[in-house]
């Protein structure tokens, strides 16, 4: 953990090994959250993944290979950028961005897919499947599959396929098969249902390369560990740059992988506030939002006990966000636990607030962020005004905005 700028991280930085604690119990529970609410048929597959991951996380060879890929393929470590002109709008607080937008494929998702693709090979499986909403996790998965010679099938809601035709083309170009899902609401949650169905059927040769820190155990733990590098690097960098820890860390929360990725290295630093920003969509009063933690209630979705957007009958409610990556009615169980334990605080950011921050960062700093990340930026603006000019805020700029130009053109009449 004593690496200096420019030198590769050690294996201990890459996977948990209990270094920071906060691992789920043997049943995959974070407090009352998490677990394995899946059909019996999938249990052996989850056991197999968990057992192999347990070996991998302490296998130096595996960790070296992962580290090598992160450095030579994904482009790690990513830099930390201070944004003083943007910060003028945040009460003068010091704002630093962790630049996950500079990774290969342009978002933090690459960290998890590279780790899980390596795990797939260890498992001796030849095929990966994945769900995708906007297509970002699908593109990342197709990328890793191409790199490692794995067959790749991506499930994507038919509605999303239409909205994100460019990403469908990317996945196809990368050699993946994209299957439009026409069940239910034809969006991300239905793509997840369909991917689980595929997995039950083809589990003997297929790994489900889950895209976020949700789903049944061990996915919340595995995806978190592969995303932890974000916070591990950022913590070291901010100490080097400012000589102290930040006052607050801000991240957008959909399923929660980029947020856990940056939060995790700071969980034991009690002086550091952790703030997650969910998609408030058109506003909480309209009912059109993705405020799972802030407005949802505890339930069971996609194999995990967690906060869910649901009606009084327990039927899942369709979420809404201008950012497809935050448009999910569930959330990772570790976030549910961080919320209930009070260690992290979660807030809503509306579409309009996010788009203002999106535009502000572009004009003041020359960085076009993903709309997902813009929720964290909007949160940092509020946080800065609250905490005052002495505060330092670390923001996870989880991805770049190229993919969002269609939305931006429409929104700003460009």
């Amino acid at each position, binding site marked *: 953990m004593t690496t200096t700028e420019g030198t590769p991280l050690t294996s201990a930085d890459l996977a948990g090994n209990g270094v920071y604690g906060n691992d789920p119990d043997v*049943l995959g529970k974070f407090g009352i959250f998490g677990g394995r609410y899946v059909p019996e*048929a999938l249990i*052996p597959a989850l056991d197999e993944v968990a057992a192999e991951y347990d070996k991998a996380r302490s296998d130096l060879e595996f960790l070296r290979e992962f580290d090598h890929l992160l450095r030579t393929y994904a482009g790690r470590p990513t830099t930390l950028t201070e944004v003083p002109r943007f910060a003028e709008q945040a009460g003068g607080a010091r704002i630093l961005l962790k630049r996950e937008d500079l990774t290969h494929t342009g978002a933090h998702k690459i960290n998890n897919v590279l780790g899980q693709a390596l795990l797939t090979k260890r498992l001796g499986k030849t095929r990966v499947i994945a769900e995708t909403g906007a297509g970002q996790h699908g593109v990342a998965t197709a990328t890793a599959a191409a790199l490692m010679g794995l067959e790749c099938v991506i499930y994507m809601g038919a509605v999303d396929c239409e909205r994100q035709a460019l990403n469908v083309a990317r996945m196809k170009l990368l050699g993946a098969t994209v299957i439009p899902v026409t069940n239910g609401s034809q969006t991300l949650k239905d793509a997840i249902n369909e991917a689980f169905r595929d997995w039950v059927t083809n589990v003997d040769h297929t790994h489900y390369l889950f895209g976020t820190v949700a789903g049944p155990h061990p996915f919340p733990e595995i995806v978190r560990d592969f995303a932890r590098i974000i916070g591990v690097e950022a913590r070291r960098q901010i100490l080097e740059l400012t000589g102290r820890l930040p006052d607050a860390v801000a991240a957008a929360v959909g399923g929660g992988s980029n947020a856990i990725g940056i939060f995790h290295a700071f969980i034991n630093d009690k002086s550091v506030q952790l703030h997650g920003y969910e998609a408030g969509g058109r506003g909480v009063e309209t009912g059109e939002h993705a405020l799972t933690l802030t407005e949802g209630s505890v339930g069971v979705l*996609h194999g995990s006990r967690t906060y869910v957007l649901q009606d*009084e009958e327990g039927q899942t409610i369709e979420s809404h966000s201008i950012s497809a990556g935050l448009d999910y009615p569930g959330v990772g169980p570790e976030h549910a636990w961080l919320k209930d334990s009070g260690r992290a605080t979660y807030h809503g950011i509306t579409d309009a607030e996010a788009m203002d921050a999106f535009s502000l960062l572009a004009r003041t700093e020359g960085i076009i962020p993903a709309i997902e990340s813009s929720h964290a930026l909007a949160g940092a603006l509020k946080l800065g005004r609250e905490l005052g000019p002495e505060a330092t805020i670390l923001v996870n700029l989880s991805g770049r905005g190229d993919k969002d130009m269609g939305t931006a053109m429409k929104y700003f009449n460009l």
Partner: protein
Amino acid sequence: MTESLEEFLIARRDTGRLLLVPYVTAGVTPGWTDIVHAYADAGADAVELGFPFSDPMLDGVTIQEASDRAIAAGTTVKGILEEVATLDVDVPLIAMTYSNLVVQQSTAEFCAALTASGLRGLIVPDSPLEEVGELADAAAAEGLDLVLLAAPSSSRARLREITERSRGFVYALTRMGTTGERGEIPEQAVRLGRELKGLTDRPVLFGFGVSNPAQAAELAGHADGVVVASALMRKLLDGARPRELGDYVASIRRALDHGAR
């Protein structure tokens, strides 16, 4: 006191009869309770009622479509239970639903509400051994038989625990995959049936992919009977009336009786 689902099924099985449990999604049509009656009249030994959930992970497209239709029609747990309470059928009724509906209030309240309406069994396919503890206790306290599922992928140790902790019957999956009609009888089903029968005296019923009378009879012969769901729901979604669904169940009944031991 009414006999339990398990006592009822064992008594029937012990007469040499192969057991038949047809399924209907509650609320899928306004007159869905007529379908329950038609099944009972056609020789069903119990009827499985699906309480629709928006994200039925284990079900194939047919049951998902039926569930979506029922939810769109405003089906609620309370509404289903009110209709169930008015049903007059002489075979046990079994609820099938997903964990999220069960945990809405408390598992104890959910189980109590089911029993109060006359249901005698419960199947929750996304509640494996790891998660079933609290629910199993709540169901037992209410005298509700909680049916556990066994899969071809389950280890022998798990199969042993499943057969010990399941009540009513053991629901054996014919194959890895989701519900839905398929043609042939997989070797793994035959193997699973044999293994489960060796582990327990509880009835073992096959489900998933039971798609025609002849196949149902052959499959049932490797255990104690079958659950038939998607084949019936496909017909219903294609416009079949309760009487036609009853006729189909009767044809499976005849095939089972013909093949009975």
